[in-house]
């Protein structure tokens, strides 16, 4: 073996060790944080904690309105942001002509994805809460988070569409497909795995967002839930559909946690730790789903 190749081998080893070390540092910090939170929070984590409203007494306080609020906000955000984002992405990638205007839009979307989230809160406060008079409702919160994640969804959609090889489009066009038939039945399905992965990651980021919702004026003490969209009663027509829930006030997990952390009593810190565990669990689950989807839809072309 020559000297040169020996020293290349040594470098290789060195980088391997360095890589391993940095990875371990990251994992170690995460693990310490996790254990720390777990040690504090596990005592409080119970069904009771999940089904109790916030309270002045730490040992009675729970996250019922917070996690239900999070679910409301996330579902509403998803319902608005996913169709809007995918459609914009399809339009920009597959339909829009490349010109100055689309270049301009493209650059702006990329920039929007990097805007600090609190700015979106201020925008939401002015536009949705005040101007559209939605108050501090689920809808106002969801629209604000929609603005926050829309650029990410658009960019993900475009990247996913771009990754579909041109040969697939050619195959469809050669059979006499229109542009829409090509996009709708071949390109979009082929890109859907990547699109969904990106969307779930965007949503799981939005789930932890506190700043924009606090800026919006979301309340921290909510001893009730938004009105159920579907309720059953013993009076005709028995099943009632209502959109009132979207206009009800809400709180979300991160706000509740933030609120507890800022209290002086030790008991609330324990509540906060338990709340963080629930939030982490939800985020981990969503990331798990994203990883699963990525594997499931992984394609060879």
């Amino acid at each position: 073996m020559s000297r040169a190749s020996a020293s290349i081998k040594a470098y290789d080893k060195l980088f391997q060790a360095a890589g391993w070390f940095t990875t371990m540092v990251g994992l170690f910090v995460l693990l310490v944080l996790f254990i720390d939170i777990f040690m504090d929070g596990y005592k409080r984590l119970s069904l009771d904690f999940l089904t109790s409203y916030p309270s002045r007494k730490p040992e009675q306080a729970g996250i019922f309105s917070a996690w239900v609020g999070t679910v409301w906000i996330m579902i509403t955000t998803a319902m608005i942001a996913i169709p809007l984002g995918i459609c914009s992405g399809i339009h920009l990638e597959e339909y829009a002509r490349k010109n100055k205007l689309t270049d301009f839009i493209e650059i702006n979307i990329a920039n929007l994805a990097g805007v600090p989230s609190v700015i979106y809160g201020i925008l939401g406060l002015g536009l949705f809460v005040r101007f559209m008079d939605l108050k501090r409702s689920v809808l106002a919160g969801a629209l604000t988070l929609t603005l926050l994640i829309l650029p990410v969804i658009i960019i993900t959609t475009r990247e996913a569409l771009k990754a579909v090889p041109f040969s697939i489009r050619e195959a469809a066009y050669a059979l006499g497909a229109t542009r829409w038939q090509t996009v709708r039945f071949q390109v979009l399905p082929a890109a859907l795995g990547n699109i969904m992965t990106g969307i779930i990651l965007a949503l799981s980021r939005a789930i932890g967002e506190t700043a924009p919702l606090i800026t919006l004026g979301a309340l921290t003490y909510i001893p009730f839930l938004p009105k159920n969209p579907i309720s059953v009663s013993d009076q005709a027509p028995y099943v009632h559909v209502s959109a009132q829930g979207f206009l009800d006030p809400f709180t979300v997990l991160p706000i509740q946690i933030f609120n507890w952390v800022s209290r002086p009593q030790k008991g609330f810190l324990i509540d906060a730790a338990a709340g963080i565990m629930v939030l982490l669990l939800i985020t981990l689950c969503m990331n798990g789903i994203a990883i699963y989807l990525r594997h499931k839809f992984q394609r060879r072309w």
Partner: protein
Amino acid sequence: MENLMEHEIQEKEQIRPGNPIAEAIRESVFSLQNLSSYYGTKKVLNEINLDIYGHSVTSLMGPSGCGKSTLIRCLNRMNDLIPSFSAQGKIIFKNTDIYSPNVDVTELRREVGMVFQKPNPFPKSIFENIAYGLKIKGISDRRLLEEAVEDSLKRSFLWEEVKDRLNDSAYSLSGGQQQRLCIARALAVKPEVILFDEPCSALDPISTAKIEELMFKLKEKYTLIIVTHNMQQAARISDTTAFLMMGELIEFGITKDIFTHPKHKTTEEYITGRFG
């Protein structure tokens, strides 16, 4: 060399409708008249005049970059997908110029199918790959689709190999099978003409032989046009051959004549392997 080319450019005027080839074979399906084409301002086809005859195999031959793909992609207007592309002249198909403004391109592409260099099945099941062409025509009846899928797979000699696994991914097939699936997919929409752009260049010799055999059968019912790099292949399967160079149609005639006594020196040099 310069002079030689010019000389030949003048001589290609002979290749026009009504020449002896046209009498020898049936009527023309495609008639290219002064076809020139450009990518931006770069001219890649120069005033091509060519008649392609029905129920035969025509091969387009020539060195890499001479415009074979560009020419074959004019015939189903696949070049429309490239924004910088433009064409001049006429391509008459069924008494209409396919580049005239009122032509429905999707209709044209149903009548003129295409098979590409690299097998490009959709990332779907074998069944769905073939059914797609019919679905976009508005056919949704399951029985009709099943019949069409079976019929197309039989025509492309793939049925026996895949009949028990129609719902498997098309990517589970070998390269040669994928290419025959692509042929079946093209057949399902009932075209009159099928264009092949180097369909075997990504395949092994056995798969290539199968595709050649298949083309031999298909020409009874369809008009086939094939771009090929492979001169033996052109000689084996085609009835007429067009030889292109640098965007010029140098020579067009019955394949046997082209290979045994080419009229032009450039053609001879090419087929004897002196360049290309």
